[in-house]
């Protein structure tokens, strides 16, 4: 990065943060601080929901996922989002009207109205444990990649991005998160579109977009839908539709970092429109980011890529000259066959086209095999906690994009990290204040007191997240560990809400003990079975629902709560 890139980076990040503070200065009452001014339009809600979900690692690693070979590479990952539109419809039709009618600050407040205080505290506690521990990773994951590639100090990167977020989130609350996310998302889209345009421009002369797609298709990169029923395949239409719907339902419907974004709308219509905006745009957005990775793959067919994209790890691995030399030869052979294929295609020579294409595919398998050999050597010698795919896009940016655009792209990654982080901190501060501090410790204080408390809790969570991120490099496989933690807790929280919304005869005592039993079952299964942690997103809610019905049947009908129940 040169001085121009640093100017673009700092001006973008600080400009948005300062604007957020200025726009929301003087917010003193609790409702405005936690839910905004009540005039939020659907487009702001829609962009805010989108920005909260799309973290920096989405934009850093998703193009790498598109670049990757095999069944899990190319466009296949887009299937993960197939359940999202259906989950968002359920939330808009069922969850949202109830949240709005009860005028709640947090999703867990609804559990208190529907069931009782202990169930509310259980839901809030499960959220705080899971999101609180996961908060550090939102800063750490992009920081480790960017600091490795840029040569920046990891601790300074974490502290810099973490403190900016704390300042404007604490100062302006939920509204500051909304207004800054709008501009952060604009920076992200501007950066991604600029990268795509430059990438297409830099494809070899004469290679049209249709040619590029034909090449990508020939290498099985356009595998966006797989109707296979095999449970061994990670991304299929069915796993995306069913598993993705459960995941999206728990994330968008019960995670306060999302709920806080869409309950703040000017009306139910604005909130629903914001969710439907995401239901329509989610798949195209992920498709576009993956397609960017596919185009990077095509670009690197004609331009020799590094044998391993994480160059810091490559340097630690020592002398791989023999492997690199074989790789260069195999890549040159592949390029020659691809050029022959293009010439034959333009000449309309079907036989030559087929022969060149077959030879190019064989050469690609050869380069993949050499890269796998190099990866085995590198991973064995270096201690890396990140996936190589995370480095594909940033390496392309630094090697091939012009200065200024590099600064914009790096700003986009930071903006994505900050927008997710701000929403998380805002939700953690709100839940701690509303569900614990106001509900248990100080129920009769003034709004100004609660706003001060919420600011204090937000600072504490922010500092905890920075501290966690600073210590994170002590742990191996950290990202996976946090994902496992999320899956272990998410399912039971979703179970609580599904019982609340759909099983009206179940009372608070039954669901509370059912949730504890379900959580215990998930822990036991986790430590005794060797299955993918994603299954716990199904097991948790299923166990919670079944246990609730069983316990309610055993203890007999419960008198309906007079407060809250009638309003639901």
């Amino acid at each position, binding site marked *: 990065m040169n001085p121009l890139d640093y100017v673009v980076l700092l001006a973008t990040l600080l400009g948005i943060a300062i604007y957020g503070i200025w726009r929301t200065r003087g917010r003193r009452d609790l409702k405005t601080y936690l839910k905004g001014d009540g005039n939020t339009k659907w487009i702001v809600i829609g962009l805010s929901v989108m920005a909260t979900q799309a973290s920096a690692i989405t934009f850093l690693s998703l193009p790498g996922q598109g670049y990757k070979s095999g069944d899990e590479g190319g*466009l296949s990952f*887009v299937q993960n989002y*197939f359940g999202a*539109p*259906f989950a*968002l*419809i359920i939330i*808009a*039709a069922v969850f949202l*009207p109830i949240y*709005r*009618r*009860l*005028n*709640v*600050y947090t999703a867990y*407040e609804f559990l208190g109205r529907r069931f009782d205080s202990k169930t509310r505290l259980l839901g809030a506690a499960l959220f705080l444990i899971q999101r609180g521990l996961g908060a550090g990773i939102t800063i750490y994951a992009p920081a480790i990649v960017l600091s490795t590639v840029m040569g920046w100090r990891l601790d300074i990167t974490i502290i810099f991005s973490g403190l900016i977020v704390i300042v404007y989130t604490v100062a302006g609350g939920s509204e500051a998160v909304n207004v800054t996310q709008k501009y952060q998302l604009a920076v992200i889209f501007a950066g991604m579109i600029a990268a795509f345009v430059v990438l297409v421009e830099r494809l070899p002369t004469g290679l049209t977009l249709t040619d590029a*797609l*034909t090449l*990508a*298709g*020939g290498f*099985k990169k*356009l*595998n*966006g*839908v797989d109707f296979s029923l095999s449970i061994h395949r990670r991304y299929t*239409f069915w796993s995306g539709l069913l598993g993705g719907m459960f995941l999206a339902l728990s994330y968008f419907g019960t995670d306060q970092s999302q709920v806080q974004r869409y309950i703040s709308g000017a*009306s*139910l*219509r604005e909130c*629903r*429109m914001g969710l*439907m905006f995401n*239901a*329509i745009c989610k*798949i*195209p957005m992920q*498709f576009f980011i993956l397609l960017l990775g596919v185009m990077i793959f095509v670009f690197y067919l004609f331009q020799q890529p590094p044998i391993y994209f994480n160059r810091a790890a490559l340097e630690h691995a020592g002398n791989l000259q023999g492997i690199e030399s074989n790789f260069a030869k195999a890549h040159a052979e592949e390029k020659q066959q691809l050029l022959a294929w293009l010439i034959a295609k333009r000449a309309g020579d079907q036989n030559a086209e087929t022969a060149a294409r077959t030879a190019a595919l064989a050469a690609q398998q050869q380069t993949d095999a050499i890269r796998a050999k190099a990866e085995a050597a590198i991973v064995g010698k270096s201690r890396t906690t990140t996936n190589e795919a995370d480095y594909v896009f940033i390496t392309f940016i630094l090697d091939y994009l012009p200065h200024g655009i590099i600064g914009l792209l790096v700003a986009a990654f930071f903006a994505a990290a900050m927008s997710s982080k701000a929403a998380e901190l805002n939700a953690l501060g709100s839940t701690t204040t509303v569900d614990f501090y*106001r509900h248990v410790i100080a*129920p*009769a204080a003034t709004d100004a007191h609660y706003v001060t408390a919420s600011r204090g809790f937000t600072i504490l969570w922010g500092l905890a997240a920075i501290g966690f991120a600073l210590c994170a490099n002590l742990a191996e496989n950290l990202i996976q560990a946090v994902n496992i933690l999320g899956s272990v807790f998410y399912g039971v929280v979703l179970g609580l809400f599904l019982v609340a919304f759909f099983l009206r005869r179940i009372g608070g005592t039954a669901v509370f003990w059912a949730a504890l039993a379900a959580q215990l079952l998930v822990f036991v299964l986790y430590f005794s079975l060797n299955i993918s942690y994603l299954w716990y997103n199904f097991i948790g809610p299923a166990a919670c629902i079944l246990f609730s019905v069983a316990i309610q049947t055993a203890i007999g009908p419960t008198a309906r709560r007079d407060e809250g129940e009638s*309003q639901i």
Partner: protein
Amino acid sequence: MMPTPDQTDATESETTGLPGLRTWRNVYLLVVAVFVVWVAFLVALERIFS
């Protein structure tokens, strides 16, 4: 300090304010239709360029 139910939402929940999509049911059907179109597009993309 307990929040009060928001009475204004009850009357507006049926209207979308969108031309041609007057009920939320129609909006949800549109979302499902867009999803189907995207799946068809992805299938076609793979078949055309394979």
